[in-house]
């Protein structure tokens, strides 16, 4: 099994990461690649960029714990997670999850599981940098993105959570 968890400021190349995971292997029959991309709007208002703050020492460990949980749950052959921090412009990738397995079901399910947990458990916080919209917002004004209840319920459907300690109250 191959595992990569990487945090970086610079953009990533999804195709390159997926190719690296499967390179030289003939046991892998399915690779699922998910890329989360920065949109040019937030709640209908144009944005200039997203700024991602993170808890450096914890983010890698937390993502690693969820990757480990995914390996326990599905017959995976490889997982790569790349998460960016810092300033991210619309159209650029924010997060990449690549899962590899012999068959598609495990790869699809594990990718979705990892994304649902990343959104609710990985210590990252998005801040919107406004582009100035119809409500008279100032360009450059910075607003923290609020967590969505729908993301919590998406993560909850995979319950029981990997371990009790990993579930914040």
């Amino acid at each position, binding site marked *: 099994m191959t595992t990569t968890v990487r945090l970086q400021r610079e953009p990533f190349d999804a195709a390159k990461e997926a190719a690296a995971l499967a390179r030289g292997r003939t046991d892998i029959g399915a690779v699922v690649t998910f890329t*989360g991309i920065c949109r040019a709007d937030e709640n209908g208002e144009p944005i200039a960029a997203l700024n*991602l*703050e*993170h*808890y450096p*020492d*914890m*983010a890698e*460990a*937390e993502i690693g714990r969820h990757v480990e949980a995914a390996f326990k749950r599905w017959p995976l052959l490889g997982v790569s997670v790349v*998460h960016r921090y810092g300033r991210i412009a619309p159209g650029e990738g*924010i*997060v990449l999850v690549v899962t590899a397995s012999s068959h598609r079901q495990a790869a699809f399910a594990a990718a979705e599981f990892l*994304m649902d947990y*990343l*959104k*609710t*458990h*990985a*210590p*990252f*916080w*998005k*801040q919107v940098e406004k582009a100035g919209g119809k409500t008279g917002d100032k360009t450059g004004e910075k607003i*923290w*993105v*609020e*967590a969505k209840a729908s*993301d919590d319920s998406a993560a909850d459907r995979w319950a029981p959570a990997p371990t009790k*300690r*990993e*579930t*914040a*109250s």
Partner: protein
Amino acid sequence: MKVRYFAWVRERVGKAEEDLDPPAEIATVHDLVAWLARQGEGYAYAFENPGVVRSAIDKRHARADARIAGAKEIAFFPPMTGG
């Protein structure tokens, strides 16, 4: 112990981290939040709604009833919005 703050909790408290030595009767994360909220205006604002702020002990998510004895690092932050 080292206490770290992130995102709007950091902005409200006015610092990213500090070394604190809370009184011995502060046993849980919940106790620490209540004690911090009395340390000044910024702290009171950050923890005005303690149910919202999340915490981690030594880089693992922790619940409000988690005991803090022996912790090297405690972090407080809003609900996460990564991914």
